[in-house]
């Protein structure tokens, strides 16, 4: 068994406990700190899964969020403890959710007739190869002569992203993730930069001291 899997399951257990504590504790400061623990757990999980870029980003984001949240919580006295909604309502909602997740997981993992099925952990679709259909001679199922291509766009990216293909160029970035983020899918990243810009000017807008003012006509009338 993959040692990564064992470590990962242990980490997930820790994160689940941490998140339950974060949600259930009545003290807001403890809640925020537990959230930070779960966030750092996520970062370690990213590292285990071969994603150092994500691990770094998760850590720095988590630190910043934690600083802001802790400041927000400790500078504001909130005498009311975090309360829950009525047990019955929440219970029924959670029951429905639990059943839903169980059914979904069963549909994802177990059931099905073999086609288009969910790939297991550690065996992504890019492990499959498919033949380039153009060169396949008609009527012949064996197409060993044609070039094998990875079965997913991620695999294609690994294969052609850096150096390129006959028809396409590569990014030239040794860090494939950055190559995708800033070149091949740069448009997404433009969107991402816009999201954060939007949120920041949105925060400025929300935090304005005065939102409304008397408009010119009102002033003239009075």
């Amino acid at each position, binding site marked *: *068994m993959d040692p*990564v*899997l064992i470590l990962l*399951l242990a980490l*997930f*257990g820790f994160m*689940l406990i941490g*998140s339950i504590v*974060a*949600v259930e504790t009545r003290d807001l400061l403890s*809640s*925020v700190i537990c*959230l930070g623990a*779960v*966030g750092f757990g996520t970062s370690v*999980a*990213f590292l285990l*899964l*071969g*994603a150092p870029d*994500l691990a770094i980003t998760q850590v720095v*984001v988590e630190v910043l969020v934690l600083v*802001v*949240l802790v400041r*927000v*919580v400790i500078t504001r006295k*909130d*005498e*009311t403890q*975090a309360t829950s909604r009525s047990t019955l309502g*929440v219970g029924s*909602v*959670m029951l429905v*959710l*639990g059943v839903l*997740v169980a059914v*979904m997981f069963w549909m994802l*993992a177990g059931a099905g007739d073999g086609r288009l099925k969910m790939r*297991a*952990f550690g*065996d*992504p679709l*890019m*492990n499959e190869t498919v033949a380039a259909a153009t060169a396949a001679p008609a009527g012949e199922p064996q197409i060993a002569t044609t070039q094998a291509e990875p079965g*997913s*766009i*991620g*695999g294609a990216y*690994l294969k052609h992203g850096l*150096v390129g293909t006959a028809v396409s160029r590569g990014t030239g970035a040794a860090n*494939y*993730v950055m190559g*995708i983020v800033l070149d091949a899918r740069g448009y997404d990243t433009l*969107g*991402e930069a816009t*999201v*954060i810009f939007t*949120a920041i000017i*949105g925060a400025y807008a*929300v935090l304005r001291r005065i939102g409304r003012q008397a408009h010119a006509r009102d002033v003239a009338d009075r």
Partner: protein
Amino acid sequence: MTLPMLPYLLALLLLVVGLYAIVAKRNVIKIIVGLAILDYAVNLILVLVGYRTTPGAAPMAPILTGGMANEPALVAGAVDPLPQALVLTSIVISLSVTALLVALGLRLYEKYGTFDTERMRNLRG
């Protein structure tokens, strides 16, 4: 159910914990916590999708080190870089949402003197 599907199940459970916080708790900070847990869960699911087991070796990050000579090994063994690129975007988006949410929470605290959403029920859906 097979063991290799277990990480997905645990990530889904994390998702349920986040949803529980949003459904059950009546506090702005708890909503922030719940949304953050939701984001961790979905980011983990995406990275899990891209993971590739390399037999007898540690997982290989999709970063080329030591020149072009190592490139074939990387292509054969590295994890999928695409979900990582997606998660990078997703982390930034959740950070942005959190920033806006904190701003709203501060403003609401200023108006009501509490983070408890129970005490700020002017609106009825």
